[in-house]
């Protein structure tokens, strides 16, 4: 089981959290002006990388707040967690 550092509560076991998919997908401001391909890209295409992934988690059975995380999808190791609204941390 993963240990996840909630930016509000600290380190907690994975079963307290729910996963929210890829982070930083911004809903287009004016969907009506988009073509079908761009809309489909927003709705369905995902980067799904082998390596660093920015993703949303929610501390459902704790503080109930959403936050973002950077995780290496090959080792499952968390590299950073950060609050919604904060910039994606630069790991370099």
């Amino acid at each position, binding site marked *: 089981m993963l240990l996840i550092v909630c930016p509000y509560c600290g380190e907690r076991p994975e079963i307290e959290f729910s996963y929210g*998919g890829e982070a930083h997908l911004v809903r287009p401001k004016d969907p009506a002006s988009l073509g079908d391909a761009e809309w*489909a890209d927003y709705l369905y*295409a995902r*980067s*799904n990388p082998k390596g660093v992934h920015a993703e949303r988690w929610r501390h459902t059975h704790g503080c109930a707040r959403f936050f973002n995380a950077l995780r290496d999808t090959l080792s*499952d190791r968390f590299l950073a967690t950060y609050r919604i609204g904060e910039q994606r941390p630069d790991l370099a």
Partner: protein
Amino acid sequence: MQRFSALSLIRHSLGGHLGWQPQWRSPEPKAEYDAVIVGAGGHGLGAAYYLAKEHGMRNIAVLEKGWLGGGNTGRNTTIIRSNYLYDESAALYDHALKLWENLSRELNYNVMFSQRGVMMLAHTVHDVQIFKRHVHANRANGVDNEWLTAEQAKEFCPPLHIGPGLRYPVLGAALQRRGGTARHDAVAWGYARAADALGVDIIQNCEVTAIRRGTAGAVEAVETSRGAIRTRKIGVSAAGNTSVVMAMAGLRMPLESYPLQALVSEPVKPMFPCVAMSNTIHAYISQSDKGELVIGAGMDAYVSYSQHGALHIPAQTLEAICELFPMFRRMRMLRNWGGIVDVTPDRSPILAKTEVAGLYVNCGWGTGGFKATPGAAHLLAWTIAKDEPHPINAPFTIERFRDGVVIDEAAAAAVSH
């Protein structure tokens, strides 16, 4: 190819079984092939076999980053059935099921296909309604599926507990008698041996690291850990790694890769006659011919390529198994593992040409593509050879997400199998 038969078995036993040849070669990659398949799972090996056998393409290679059959083909719980809801899916999965029925003979390889019946348990009024709808839809499509009462389900599968006191009572079941299991490794080995015999080069420990495209955009070559290989046709059949491979050609896929776990018990005498599955409490189980109970657990919550998951996932599954089959409560589990499954938003696969000329993709089989192995392989070969889809896989494009013609099998595939 040395053919397998009772006679050849006896003949080789006289020689102490020292006369058997390796079942496939391990050739060095050539500089150029007419087609290259990425991924030596059952789907990729099968596609190479059908390309050679049915489309006369002999100068082809299957490239595999690890060992053949070491991906999800060798990690799955081998459930085979075709009782999916929509017309497109029923045609696709039943195409595969029909090929399964003759596969051992076709390949001269015992894939141990066993039509012992797949029974899906209903625990809620909603389950009952959905499954009955499936039964009717399947029968309208010529796919066998029948409704069983709880008592009939117990008769079909005596270890099943249907008595009072269950948190999720068994209200009935849908049974596909033509469904069953097969030996997963044998499927990969059988296709590898048959493809090799037709001249296909199977190149293991050869990871594709880049796809080269020409000025007009068409594919020209793959870069691999064993050098560059020129080719005008690339069929990607890389399951959980599909997004990574397709990104090499600049394509973003509607896919996410998740760990899916399974486990087996210590081997015991034959006592479980069929495949039983429960979507609602998420468990599925069968007994292998070795005697192990083969148990499928759920997907882990997050995108990953780690090929393992967390223990609370199989623990939950075992709770469900113990509830449904109390006689297994004292069984010990022997091994637990994970594979990486590529999941589409509508839980249906993608088997199609792409916007890149010469690039074809077979992916998105997610938690349930073993059952499709011969069908997917056959249709991928067709699509590559003719540069157009077969009518059966024509609906399974990438563009269906853009065009709003998704094939939503989330209900049929809600349990991971």
